[in-house]
């Protein structure tokens, strides 16, 4: 079966692990548990009648102590840049990481995932920031790992992009 590797990239505590758990097992946990190293899952999806195995690499979030290890990215066909919409610094970190990932992997499909959209009253990302990003041709999708909103759409979209690519 055709297989594609996808990396989850972003600052710490943005919900990368929760997004994968929601997508793979339909489970959400309120308790924040940090990822150390990388956790790998897989899920088979059907894209326009074609079966595709997604190999999901949930990388540890970057912070001042733990830098993203580029060796984890090898062989990726796409990546998801995950932002916690209630923390503006995670948006800045995503932009910084995108440049580093593109420098390592070249231009491959990716999506900017604005997670925690169930917490809109605490939202810190300005609409103008998002419009500027979209103007560059980036795909931006709002998600909530808690409610499940947008999660399926993110993975379906990246899968389609990878098959086109």
């Amino acid at each position, binding site marked *: 079966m055709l*297989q594609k590797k996808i990396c989850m990239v972003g600052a*710490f505590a943005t919900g990368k692990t929760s997004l994968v758990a929601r997508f793979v097992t339909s489970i959400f946990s309120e308790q924040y548990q*940090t990822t150390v*190293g990388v956790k790998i899952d897989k899920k088979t999806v059907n894209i326009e009648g074609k079966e595709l195995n997604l190999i999901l690499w949930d990388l540890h979030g970057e912070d001042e*102590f733990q830098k993203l290890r580029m*060796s984890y990215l090898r062989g990726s066909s796409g990546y998801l840049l995950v932002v916690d919409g209630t923390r503006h610094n995670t948006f800045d970190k995503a932009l910084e990481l995108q440049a580093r990932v593109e420098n390592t992997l070249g231009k491959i499909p990716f999506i900017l995932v604005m997670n925690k959209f169930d917490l809109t009253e605490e939202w810190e990302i300005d609409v103008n920031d998002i419009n500027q990003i979209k103007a560059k041709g980036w795909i931006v999708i709002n998600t909530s790992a808690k409610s499940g909103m947008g999660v399926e759409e993110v993975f379906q979209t990246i899968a389609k992009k990878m098959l086109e690519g």
Partner: protein
Amino acid sequence: MLDIPAPVVAYIINLMLESRSLAYMLVSKNGCLADWGGKLTAYGITNLHKGENIGQQVFFLEGLLPLDNHPLFLPRLKTDYGLCADVHLFPSSDGDWVLLFDATLDEIQLSLIQQHANDVSLSHEKITKLLNQSSDNFC
């Protein structure tokens, strides 16, 4: 290269086998499994078939091989099927070697430290946000 006496080499190998659950696979440059051994079942790797594509048999190796003449190190790699592993990949004339070592203890210790550091950072961010909001309200 260091001239290491045979008994020392044997001791180190035994140590790796016993305490760090050494396992290995050899993958030919066309991506097919050529050989394997050690404690692969500890990492959830079973039912291997010689001559078949490695990515279809060991899903976390999808996309990683063949190597381009440089070794690769993937620390603390986990799946739902086995131990947390430090994965070392290096090329040879026979193909690419994949070594797995148990990294469970390392992962547990680092998790405790990292969890604490991240919790502190999140609390600090929250307090800063609240202070900024209250100073905005005050102004």
